[in-house]
């Protein structure tokens, strides 16, 4: 009986696969790799593609849109991406975030994005204040203790 290894495929938004497998195939940076138990330590970037997992007689397939593959002799981990990654996309997102910060800090005026809930709170607080005064008035008249 051949050895097995633990394989975990996870994405940031959930667990995809976890179990003992005989071997698996994935699309690494330099082409498809087949991994057997007791493989030497390896870290690779994954390209978008299929991960084929063989456990006993069963073969299952998963699609990953990129990620990172880490291999230790008896445990392998695939960290699948959920977001589409590209260097220029990341840069664009970064620039956007910086612009937003600048904009927010430049016009440090009163908050315009007051949600409806906050309005409701302000109203409630005002009501409470009025009620407080009202109660004082009542207690002065000896109607309330």
């Amino acid at each position, binding site marked *: 009986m051949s050895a097995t290894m633990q394989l*975990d495929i*996870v*994405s*940031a*938004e*959930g*667990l995809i696969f*976890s179990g003992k497998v005989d071997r698996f195939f994935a699309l*690494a*940076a*330099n082409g498809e790799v087949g991994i057997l138990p007791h493989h*030497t*330590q*390896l*870290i*690779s*970037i994954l390209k978008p593609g299929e991960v084929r997992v063989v456990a006993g007689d069963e073969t299952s397939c998963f699609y990953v849109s990129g990620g*990172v593959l*880490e291999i*230790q002799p008896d445990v392998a*981990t695939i*960290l699948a*991406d*959920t*977001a*589409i990654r590209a260097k220029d996309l*990341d*840069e*664009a*997102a*970064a*620039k*956007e*975030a*910086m612009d*937003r*910060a600048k904009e*927010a*800090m430049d016009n*440090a005026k009163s*908050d315009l*994005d007051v*949600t409806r*809930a*906050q309005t*409701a*709170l302000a*109203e*409630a607080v005002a*009501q*409470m204040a*009025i*009620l407080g005064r*009202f*109660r004082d*008035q*009542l207690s002065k*008249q000896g*109607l*309330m203790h």
Partner: protein
Amino acid sequence: MASGKEIRGKIASIKNTQKITKAMELVAASKMRRAKQRMEAALPYSEKIKRVIGHLTLAHPEYKHSYMTVRPVKRVGVVVVTSDRGLCGGLNSNLLRRLALRSKEWQLQGVQVTFSVLGNKGVSFFKSFGGKVVATKSGLGDKPHISDLIGSVKVMLTAYEQGEIDELWIMSNKFINTMTQQPIMHKVLPVAKEDVATAHGHWDYLYEPEAKEVLDALLTRYVESLVYTATVENIACEMSARMVAMKGATDNAGKFIKELQLAYNKARQAAITAEISEITAGAAAVSG
């Protein structure tokens, strides 16, 4: 004198407020359940990536990535996770107060602080607090996606690589239970080295394609995963804090209504008594 009608009006208006707070409590309760599920769904990834990073710190790579090298700390970066909306008790104010204290400490030590802010509440706080804010992101909603966070994280990572910051921290709320949330702060970069390396001997990974590229990709994902986990957890905190705050508000409104009802009854009774005594006095005057 407060008339019966006036008090009735107050009772009606406070009942309306109570309806709002009650509805918000129920909505927050169901959103909290879903937020907790998302928090749990994010766990496997963050555990696994931590395991990989743990292995990585045990390896003896020829290539030293800047995220793993400790530098003297002159400037730090903090990713601040806050909620988008208010009405969640002291959740944001506790966190921001802790943050303000901590950045004061840093400043006293001559360390400059740079912020990357997630969430409306944090953004409006920094408008008055000042400080160097290099990136913001708000309007994440209840279901943040990791791609929403990439930009704000990338700004900090670039700053780290270029030596503009020497350490990266995350500040967010930790979900302890429904009643308790605690602001916590932890260091993300540089990645801490574990002290058990020797037992495993000297080994290094095979890198495909190049060590730098692989480590870049892995460590970027690691930081993003930490920020994502913190964000999702913060949402669970927000919802449970709101649920508790709104329950308090609903209960208070109930108390108010009770008191006002009592006052209303007394006022009504007083009016009736006054009327009767007037009638009897009138009748006495006529018959007398």
